[in-house]
């Protein structure tokens, strides 16, 4: 029983997380695409810094979102 509850929580977590993530990346592609292309073409040094920062920020942000969703699900269960 406990294992099936864990699996259900995990699936709920993944579903919410998946929707948020896909909404996020469509927004990124729509609003950041032009700016990043301009940086790549004309300001390569700035592009290099921004690229690393964006990846680090996304990794940290997705980790935080994932932890918050898990906490929310566990809070609802108790």
């Amino acid at each position: 029983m406990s294992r099936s509850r864990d699996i259900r929580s995990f699936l709920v977590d993944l579903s919410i997380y998946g929707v948020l993530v896909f909404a996020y990346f469509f927004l990124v592609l729509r609003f950041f695409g032009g700016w990043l292309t301009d940086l790549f073409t004309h300001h390569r040094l700035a592009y290099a810094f921004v690229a690393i920062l964006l990846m680090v920020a996304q990794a940290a942000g997705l980790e935080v979102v994932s932890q918050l969703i898990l906490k929310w699900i566990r809070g609802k269960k108790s």
Partner: protein
Amino acid sequence: MHFPISGVTIDPVLLAGLGFLVGILGGFFGVGGSFLAGPALFALGLPMNFVVGTDLVHIVGKSIAAARKHHTLGNIDLRLAAIMVLGTIVGIQVGVNGIEALKKIGKVDQVVGLVAIIVYTGISFFVIWEGWRTSKMPSLKAKGKTENQSAVAKDKMAFGRFTRWIQRIHLYPMISLPHSGIKSISVWAILGISFIGGAFSSFLGGGAGYIRMPCMVYLLGIPTHIAVGTDLFEIVVSASVGSFQHALHGNVDILIALVMHTGAAIGAQIGATLTQYFTGPRIRLAFAPLPLIGAGLIVYGLMTGHQMK
């Protein structure tokens, strides 16, 4: 959808799906999956120089969360990581210079593709050979070890003489790694292995864990859990440096990397969870065909002009 930086048109859902699959592999097998991500990107139409740089940036994102988890578990040998970063950064520069030289003569796809095919095929056959060799050794179950502990112990027995030989090299400066349980080892041995890992990483893309991890465990004698954690931590630093170098040379499409990473972040959670339900040394044999699939994708890409749509 058109990605203007690299000039390719790829379905972003397909990209996220690729990242998702690679994330599962990473979470399950404990490898980055670049031997699939890189070839798949190439088969989808991304030029090889962009494959290398973009995959490296993607690895930075994937490694951050994993390294943090390993840090809380105490699996990072900071002294070892600091030395490895130095060697890796030098190796990365060599790899970056190699890519730039190949771009100048217009042979990036062919040379990097050929090297990747040789390396990935070699990894598959090594895993099969290692699994076969380990299965031939006497069982350690009678000594009260679990099946997995028995497999790890057999690995150590199989490669122990290489570890002892490396640790006996007295090339100063020597260093002790108490967190990894190593009394004395030459700094040059650590630098050499990390240099090779860095060169492969920036030449083929990804974290090159398939080179670095076996070398750390079987040549340096680092305990596996410390090797995994330290490798991940070191990759965050060195892959960031490598990604920066590649981005300066116009080899990184950050939009593709960000899209792939969204899928990888989800897949990694599933992969890590699956390890609770699947254990045992047969898992390593299940891993063996994967680099071969990557090699096959590169062959497909080179022969057809990489237009898998």
